[in-house]
């Protein structure tokens, strides 16, 4: 599985959305119906899956699916 596919699989599971809705520009809050608690839980699942820690300050910058993938890449995940 590519990084994109892994990330989208987690989002589909956590937010009860479809793969088709998971476009790179999709905003978690505006397009995928997530609230602040959903986002926290989602990021925790990412931390668990990819074995890293995401600081609260870094979390603030994550708005879209593309943001997550770029962020993970910047941390050396592939």
């Amino acid at each position, binding site marked *: 599985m590519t990084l994109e596919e892994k990330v989208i699989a987690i989002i589909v*599971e*956590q*937010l*009860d959305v479809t793969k088709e809705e998971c476009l790179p520009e999709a905003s978690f809050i505006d397009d995928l119906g997530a609230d602040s*608690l959903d986002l*926290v*839980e989602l990021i*925790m699942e990412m931390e668990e899956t990819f074995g890293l*820690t995401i600081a609260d300050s870094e979390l603030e910058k994550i708005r879209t699916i593309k943001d997550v993938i770029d962020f993970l890449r910047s941390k050396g995940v592939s």
Partner: protein
Amino acid sequence: MGAVTPCGNSVQETWQGVCAGLSGIGNITKFDTTDFKTKIAGELKRFDPLQFATKSEVRRLDDFIIYAVAASVMALEDAGLSIDAGNGERSGVIIGTAIGGISTIEKEKETIMREGPRKISPFSAPSCLPNLAAGYVSIRHGLKGPINCAVTACAAGTDSIGGAFRLIADGYADVMIAGGAEAAITPLTVGGFNVMRALSTHNDEPEKASRPFDRDRNGLVLGEGSGLVVLEALPVALNRGAKIYAEVVGYGSTSDAFHMAAPPPGHEGAARCMAVALKDAGMRPEDIEYINAHGTSTQLNDLYETQAVKRVFGEHSRSLAVGSTKSMTGHLLGAAGGIEAIFAVKSIDDGIIPPTINLDHPDPECDLDYVPHTARIVPVHTAMSCTFGFGGANAVLIFKQFED
């Protein structure tokens, strides 16, 4: 009405099961009971939460909330009632529980110890709270009226329905979903009750362990689930042609002021509670035909409850049918009052009194008519439901056949 219980995943399935005298008690499967004295309880069987909730909800919310949601969906469907902008603000919810999200508390405590506080789920704090059964049901159905949660232990379900009854009678709501929800078959609960010697240890024959009023009873058997009723102001119900199962006519609440966990001999507080409910209903003791007793299968409750019934009903106690459905469902703690209100109502609606099973050798001092072994087919016009909780909290409801 809606329910999920150890005897069935709907009111219909549960009612059929208890009228057939079938026990819902079995081995505990939720956790490893190797080190526990009690290895039996009444768990839900083949319950599919995804029928009533999304995968995310099931993952995030404690079981007691999911059980309440399931019961509420079935209750509103049974009532043929939808909540919308027109009636939402006049429709409320009170769902009681003894301990709320105890399994979430236990699980997340383990998470902290194993992985640290950062790994706690962000949904765990709300999920622990006792009022979240009422809260989530209100979210699911758009109930914007009064909301509350009785936490009077084993009396919580009854107190929730009683509170809802009063709110409607006093004009603060037209519709109230009310009852109880409990999912407390956990290591801490079983272990805690075990060291109090409150639970039956009859592990070899789980279905025979809950034996209210029997000479060989040796403690209560825990159960889990939810039972909810839809209460409606009469004019509102008549106006929409609602199916009316029965009428709530009386509610009593009293305290023993005696002991944290044990009733006093004669259970004076319970007797007073029955009397308060009768007065509230404008009824005399002779007007009651069936009592769904608290009947927990403990040495003290069953004896003292019998004494209390005799004190209140005098000669008429010989003509009363006093059954304990806990012989089949086990003790659902905060949800007991919810499901037992449903049994009282069904007894009126169907003209069937469910049995007290396992009554092989009645305690000589328990000499009332407990409807032993088999259900009794007989018209029931009035039924009383009694529940008595830790802390000396007593709650009683009276239901009557509805006459136009």
